[in-house]
């Protein structure tokens, strides 16, 4: 605060100018490649457009079509269930592994690389791998299940492996397995955040008699809470946008019985299979609003729990 030797107005004007300079590349990209196309999509959502003929204004018709479309509501439900299942599981799993790796584990580099490996495997290949691993007839997972609890297994309970991608109940858990397997990115972010927690805080907590659990609860968790919130929100957004895996599995049919008709899958089918561009644009905008509401909700609920060090100022 002793910096304020010059009149306050000049300094803050200079700082504000620098702020605009720093964000100017982003502002340019935003206006040209995001804001423009977003408004363009909004316009298209009020039109009938089939790529070939010019867009024709139809008002709210596209939204009305969707409101009475069973598949649209089904796709919203599928994505919501998938999100509720995969996002919390993913966070707990990645954080757990990141904490393990943050201990003084030998061969840290090797472990880190191996845990991260699945998330660099291309979506297409990873999905095909899981289609094959989870194949009810030849898949290795159901082979294990049968070998242990099948009719002739070690413990003959007569339980057969699930039909996974062919079963309306098991298809979403099967997709969740694929997403959990690629937990490497969020694990990296958590690990980076864990390593950023000042060791002085741990030392101080230890001197005050805090055990491992208390240090985790009162030091680690608050210090990494902004990053946890970040991965939670981006996790929701990402899982609502699931497309590639679903496309590889069912080619846009959402089989069985629309049980894997993910939201964006249906959007894509409408846009590029049915060439109902206007309806697809309306779907895109509804998705945007759904995500917006969920995010604002998460930010609002978390305000009390997320801790920003330099704002609070008390830590040092």
């Amino acid at each position, binding site marked *: 605060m002793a*910096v304020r030797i010059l009149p306050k107005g000049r300094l803050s004007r200079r*700082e*504000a100018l*620098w*702020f605009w*300079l*720093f*964000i100017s590349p*982003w502002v340019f*990209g935003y206006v*040209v*490649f*995001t804001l423009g*196309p977003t408004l*363009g*999509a909004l316009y*298209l959502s009020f039109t009938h457009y089939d790529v070939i003929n010019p867009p024709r204004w139809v008002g709210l018709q596209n939204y009305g079509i969707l409101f009475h479309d069973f598949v649209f509501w089904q796709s919203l439900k599928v994505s919501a269930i998938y999100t509720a299942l995969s996002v919390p599981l993913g966070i707990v799993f990645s954080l757990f*592994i990141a904490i*393990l790796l943050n201990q*003084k*584990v030998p061969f840290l*580099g090797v*472990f880190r690389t*191996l845990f991260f*490996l699945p998330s*660099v495997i*291309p*979506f*297409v*290949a990873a999905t095909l*791998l899981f289609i*094959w691993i989870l194949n009810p*007839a*030849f898949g290795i997972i159901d082979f294990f299940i049968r070998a242990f609890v099948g009719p002739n297994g070690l413990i003959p309970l007569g339980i057969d492996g699930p039909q996974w991608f062919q079963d309306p109940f098991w298809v979403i858990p099967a997709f969740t397995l694929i997403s959990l397997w690629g937990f490497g*990115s969020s694990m*990296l*972010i958590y*690990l*980076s955040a*864990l*390593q*950023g*927690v000042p*060791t*002085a805080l741990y030392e101080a907590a230890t001197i005050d008699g805090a055990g491992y659990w208390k240090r985790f609860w009162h030091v680690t968790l608050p210090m990494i809470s*902004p990053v946890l919130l*970040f991965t939670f*929100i981006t996790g929701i957004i990402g899982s*609502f*946008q699931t*497309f*590639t895996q679903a496309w590889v599995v069912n080619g846009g049919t959402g089989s069985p019985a629309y049980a894997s008709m993910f939201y964006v899958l249906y959007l*894509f089918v409408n846009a590029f299979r049915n060439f109902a561009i206007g309806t697809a644009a309306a779907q*895109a905008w509804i*998705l945007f609003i759904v*995500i917006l509401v969920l*995010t604002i909700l998460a930010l609002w609920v978390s305000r009390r729990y997320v801790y*920003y*060090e*330099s704002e609070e100022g008390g830590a040092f």
Partner: protein
Amino acid sequence: MAELTETQAYTGKRGVTGLWSNQKFQRGLITAVATFLCILGVVVIMFPVAWMISTSLKTEAAALQFPPQWIPKPAVWHNYWVALTSNPFGIYFKNSMLYAITVMVLQTLSSALAAYGFAKLRAPGKNLIFLFVLATLMLPYEVTLIPQYVMFAKMGWLDSYKPLIIPQIFGASYSIFLLRQFMRGIPRDYEEAALIDGASYFSIWWRIILPLSMPALGAVAIITFMWHYNNFMGPLLYINSRLLYPVQLGLQQFQAPHGGTEYNLLMAASLVTILPPVIVFYFAQRFFIQGIVISGVKG
């Protein structure tokens, strides 16, 4: 006998109680448990990869054999040759790397610029503008997909990497948000000292903020690289010429031609395509280990 056991148990118990309160033992135990869990985790996580390797070395018939053949006999190394030469994978690799590395470098830098502005500089209306970053973060790319495609088609950018690279180099909201969260944690003391010494905000960004943000920058750069290396929908939409294909479109070819996927060849090709990101990640790991630098303020 029973007495002896009891005595042993008693002394043993005392010994254990003593050990429990020993800091060094506690730390050692935690390391041992963590190591054990890590090994267990790696076995589970790596099993599909092991199965992938196994499949990649089988004949097409052996790949579908049941009960499964654990170790391929004989190992068909020729699969790799077939997988990589039936399509020009060398060219696909070059295309993918040029695309992913260009975006990685430029996007990380431009994102770090904006992130510093949002994290540290005070300006009227900043929070309102940051809401736009957050909104972009929440904006599904499907919203911009169709209008962007129409726009790039009119500009004659189809069948080139321009639509995939140019929109990316001005910063990504994901990276800006992550870097901002990280930079907010950097204490103001450094900057204020530099300001007194007459440093400009740009040199503060370059000399103080960027070096302190290395762990986050490393993470952002790697995630950006991975995302674009693995990007499938973008190239599918914009790239038509086979010689411009990135690796992902090349991989897809194994699925299409014969109807039935040749899993052995697909797995062989997939395994080769995951090598570049794995190597990049392995060598960039030092950025994460440098994370301790952030706590430099404690000294």
